[in-house]
């Protein structure tokens, strides 16, 4: 175990190819699940399980993963999973953790795995409570920026101007900055990651595992049916989100924020972030901003907003 941790510290911050070779073979999802082809949730979850291993109990609220588990009496997951009501993931996890602690099984990881609906909206109360109480667990939000499981309705994580079934002409509000809300809880560790950057995600989960107390990781999960792009482009969409600055990779450990990879370079202005247009024009959920004609006003609003977000990041997190 210790050797593995040193290895991950030294090796996994190296080049991409070297890093991936060192990822463990552990698989906790059995092939033949109910996931859509190209699903980012399973990409993310495979990596999460590689970092956490089989000594993990997972709590899953209503979300796509609750369906991906497949149908009774069969399950596609090879670790213990407790499904729970939509708003209750973090509260259920608090209970599981308390039970394990009473049984002296403090080495078993408690993982709450929820979508953005069960995290930003209906689940935010339970999450906030569990963080404030110091529950020793890892809460991971896989964020596809919609209520995906129920058929692509808008959530608090849906970006401005995105089509959803409940924002047919495009969402009129900007999304919540969940990362900021989490940081206001001053938990030992929180991070933003993306399925397109596997070593970064793996590192973050591994780090979270090594820390006691509440940890929160949010993974951007580009959803082919939800965002309206071809199912082979899941990884590409995630990378573009980071390269355009629509999504930032960072971690916050003991209230100190560090940006990672491309996001760090963008923060430090060592590279320019690509215009957000390059990301949104690839997704059918933003098609109405380009066809039948360009909606210059809204495209500019998205770009300006993104610039403002990064200016705020620089003000808050750049070393002076």
């Amino acid at each position: 175990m210790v050797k593995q941790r040193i290895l991950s510290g030294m090796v996994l911050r190296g080049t991409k190819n070297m890093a991936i070779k060192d990822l463990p073979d552990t698989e906790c999802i059995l092939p033949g699940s109910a996931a859509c082809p190209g699903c980012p949730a399973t990409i993310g979850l495979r990596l999460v399980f590689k970092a956490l291993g089989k000594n993990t109990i997972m709590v899953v609220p209503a979300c796509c993963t609750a369906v991906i588990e497949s149908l009774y009496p069969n399950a596609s997951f090879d670790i213990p999973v407790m499904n729970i009501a939509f708003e209750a993931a973090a509260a259920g996890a608090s209970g599981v953790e308390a039970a394990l602690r009473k049984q002296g099984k403090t080495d078993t990881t408690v993982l709450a795995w929820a979508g953005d609906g069960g995290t930003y909206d209906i689940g935010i109360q339970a999450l906030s409570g569990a963080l404030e109480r110091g529950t020793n667990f890892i809460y991971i939000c896989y964020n596809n920026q919609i209520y995906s499981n129920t058929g692509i309705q808008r959530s608090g994580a849906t970006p401005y101007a995105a089509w959803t079934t409940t924002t047919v002409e495009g969402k009129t509000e900007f999304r919540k900055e969940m990362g900021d809300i989490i940081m206001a809880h001053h938990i030992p560790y929180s991070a933003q990651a993306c399925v397109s950057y596997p070593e970064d995600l793996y590192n973050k989960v591994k780090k979270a595992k090594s820390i006691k107390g509440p940890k929160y990781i949010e993974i951007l999960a580009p959803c082919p049916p939800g965002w309206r792009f071809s199912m082979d482009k899941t990884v590409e969409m995630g990378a573009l989100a980071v390269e355009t600055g629509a999504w930032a990779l960072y971690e916050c450990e003991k209230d100190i924020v560090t940006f990672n990879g491309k996001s760090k370079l963008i923060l430090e202005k060592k590279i320019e972030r690509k215009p957000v247009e390059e990301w949104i024009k690839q997704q059918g959920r933003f098609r109405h901003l380009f066809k039948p004609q360009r909606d210059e006003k809204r495209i500019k609003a998205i770009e300006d907003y993104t610039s403002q977000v990064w200016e705020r990041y620089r003000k808050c997190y750049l070393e002076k």
Partner: protein
Amino acid sequence: MKVMIDTGNYIAAKAAVMAKPDVVAAYPITPQTTLVEGIAKYVATGEFKGEYICVESEHSAMSACIGASATGSRTFTATSSHGLLLMHEMLHWASLARLPVIMCNINRVIGPGWNIWSDQNDSIAQRDTGWIQFYCSSCQEIFDTVIQSFKLGEHKKVGLPVMINYDAFILSHTSMPVYIPEQKEIDDFIPTFKPLWKLDVDNPITFGNIIGPAYYEKVRKAMQDAQENAKTLIPEIAKEWKNKFGRYHGDLLERYKCEDAEYILMSMSAIGAESKVAIDNLRADGLKIGLARVRTFRPFPSEEMIKLGKQSDLIVIDRNISIGSEGALFNETKAALYNKSDAKVHGFIAGLGGKDVTYQDIEKICKKVVNGKAKDFEWYGFEGD
């Protein structure tokens, strides 16, 4: 055996702590507050050695209890009124999951407007959730029933959560002397918790994923069978308690002066206790009347109702109302008697909103029936009484 003089809530807290739950997750609400505060005091003294989670809502309280119970822990919580309503979704979850969470519910009026006194609409509204329901009418009964509930709910033939109800303030904040057995005697009475299933890294099951209709129906049938088993086990456990500790509050019902009764009064909780005084007075006036205090509302004691109906006409007092219909006890008693009895059944609504129901009120109700002046169903106090 020592005697503890304290309020219903502190007695319930003592019972809960003596049952040694591994996890308690609770949220305060008047008038349950002193119960959870009572447990917190035991945390401070070290008498409670389990995990005590101060959750941020009642919905989370039940969710945390579910998580803990699913991981193999004995669990306990308490709530009242709006808190019970808020956890409604998770009450269903706990019983469908066959998790024996034990919970005290202090029967308090539902708002709006805000009302902290006693009626039973809160717990009656949960009668379809699959929880076993008891209604207590003394602090001694609260203590005894809480302990017995752990044994009942966790029994392998039951495996269902249990709700122990008692009145806001009338019982929750009223002190009575209670005999408390020794800790070792409680340890011997309740077996070690052996969960029917659990989350276990050595046996990785998935709980609660998508289930098709035919399979789901089987889950429901199994719950129904479990409550039927409870009907047999409740009297057994009550008898065992009586043999060990000398106290007995009835099992599914508590019968009082029913032997030669022409009329039997049926009521629950505090009105049930008050009814005994009324029965004594009515008997002194020459009426052949007895009391069947309903202790167990779920499983509904249908067979007991039929036995009562064979000997007497029935008078039912409900401290609850299903708007658009009748009181729950009245309604379900008639359903139990259908085709099985000629007994006449009269129903009364009394005490809603916490309105005081004294033994004089109960005597008036009974006399109205006996004198042939009562309608089939009446709201006491609204008919120009």
